[in-house]
Structures are given as C-alpha cells and as structure tokens.
C-alpha cells in the first residue's frame, strides 16, 4: 500500500546520485528488502515501473534483494535463519536470540555507464 511512496524515495535517491555524476547514466539500482521491512516486493516493483514509465528513467532497472530474518545466539554465537517464527537457537535451544538481519530497507548500489 505504501510501496509507491517507497518507489518514489528510491527514484529520488537515484536522481540525487545522478546530479553528482552528470556525465554518467545510472542503469540499475539495487535495493535490499528485509523480511521484517513490511514491504511487498511485487508491489514495489510494480509501483516503480509505473513511476518511471514515459520518463527519462524508463529503462532504469530496480534490482530487489530479499534479506531473510537472521538471528544470533548470544550463548554460542551461532547465526541462523529464523523459520516458522521460531527464535530458538537450533544448537543450544536458547530463546532470547537477537535479530541481526531482516530489517533492511536500504539502497545497496547503483550501476553506472560512464
């Protein structure tokens, strides 16, 4: 529902970056979407396409990378991908594990033709 706004924010960042590199053409923007970001990737991709259509940015590719939720066990320092909302450490059973990845809503990179 708010994906169009997110798409607009991504495009704004691209435009700002483009101003910094006036002789280059940005062809692709890579965005990380965490499991906990609350952003639907299909809706975002669709919103982005609608936004750039018939504009200077029509050929700009949006590359979305999904980041699954990863927990770290404070006792055995084991990192594991959380499945089925079970936060327990698969090695020692510790319940109070910490979320270390999965909240991302970050622009990771842009590709430029110089």
């Amino acid at each position, binding site marked *: *529902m*708010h994906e169009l*706004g*997110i798409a607009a*924010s*991504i495009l*704004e*960042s691209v435009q700002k*970056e483009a101003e910094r590199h006036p002789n*280059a053409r940005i*062809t692709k923007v890579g*965005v990380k979407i965490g*499991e*906990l*970001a*609350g*952003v639907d990737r299909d809706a975002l991709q669709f919103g982005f396409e609608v936004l750039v259509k018939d504009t200077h940015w029509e050929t700009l590719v949006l590359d979305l990378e999904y980041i699954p939720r990863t927990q770290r066990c404070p006792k055995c320092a084991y990192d594991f991908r959380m499945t089925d*909302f*079970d*936060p327990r450490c698969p090695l020692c059973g510790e*319940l*109070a*594990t910490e*979320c270390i990845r999965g*909240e991302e*809503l*970050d*622009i*990771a*990179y*842009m*590709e*430029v*033709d*110089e």
Partner: protein
Amino acid sequence: MNRIAVEKKVLNENQILANRLRERYQQNGVLCVNLISSPGSGKTALLERTLERMDKSSRVAVLTGDLQTENDAKRLAKFGFPVKQITTGGTCHLDARMIERHLEDWPLEDLDLLIVENVGNLVCPSSYDLGEDAKIVLLSTTEGEDKPLKYPSIFFKSELMLLTKIDLLPYVPFKADEARENARRVHPGMEIIDVSSTTGEGLHRWMEWLKLRQEKARVQGVAG
C-alpha cells in the same frame, strides 16, 4: 559499467527528519509514543480513557492521524489537552515530515508526553520512524490471534503490545494465550498489557507504563 556502493536507507529523508525530532524530544525531556493498530482496534477509545485519567496539570498533547475527517480530534479535545488532527488525504501512514509540520506551533518545552495515534494500518506505519521513543501496537480480541504472524514487522518493532477489548473475551472465539504466544514468537520478551477501555480493566498498568517511561524520558532530558 561501474557499480557504486551506496549503502543508505531508502527512507533516508524520513530518517533524517525522524532523528531530528528524536533529538528535540530528548532535549526537552518529552516522551513520544506512536500508537499503531488495524482500524477499529480501539486506539481512540484507549486515548479517551487515557486522557480522562491524566491529571489536569499533565503536559500531554495528542496528534491523531486519519485519511479523512476531524472526528478523532473532536472526540479527544473534550479532555482539555491540546489535540491536533493530521488528515493525510489518502496516505496510509504518518511520516516524520507530517509530525514536524504539526508540531510547529507547539513548543516542546511545554510538553512531557506526546501521543501520536497513527493511521489505522498494521503494515505501512511500521516502515516510518517518527522519532518516537516507543512504538506501541494494539491487538483487539475481535481480530485474529494470528495477526502477529501475519504482520510480523510491526509486532517486531513495537516495544509494547496492548491487548484491547478484553471485556469481550467471554463472547468471542479469540484465544488470548495463543495471541500472546504469537506476539512473543515474532518478538521474544515483548511486553504485553491486557486492557479494556469499556470496563477500565488493566488501564492502571498502562498508565503506570506511561508514567515510568515518562520519568525515564525526563531524566534523560535533564541529563542531556
């Protein structure tokens, strides 16, 4: 072709504004809480009961968000505290810019507590930092007990869950234990308070929570 690493938040502009708000709250010792839930979970009713219980000298203000109408602000203005409606005109969440704009004529040094009632929506408000000290999610007994699993983002990011409308438990199929367990699966150790805005049950615990957090914010404001 050349790849440049960017590594910045998509909602960077919102984040900058939110950080600025957070700094201002801290400087002034203001506690800001952001109430989030589905439409109809009882945010406004909870606020009515909350304001009713506040001492008349309390320095509290409310910003209430909706797509349309001033109805909520009218309901909440009765208690004599400053209330402002933010009508988003269709936007499904509040963002930091809206908060900043609506705070323009409210000097923060005159406040101890700012309550933001977000637009009724469990998805989008979770992405937008408003500079608050704590997000608070409401889940009512007329919803499904699996809501925390369906909308994990907001339950993960909220510090406190208020289980509302508990007076209806005898009449609805809602399994409260399961709902609490689901919330804690998404967010281990999450604090949960059961409340009813109709009977008043549990509201003292919620008021106590607010008071404790306000005290903490005040001390931080003094220390800062």
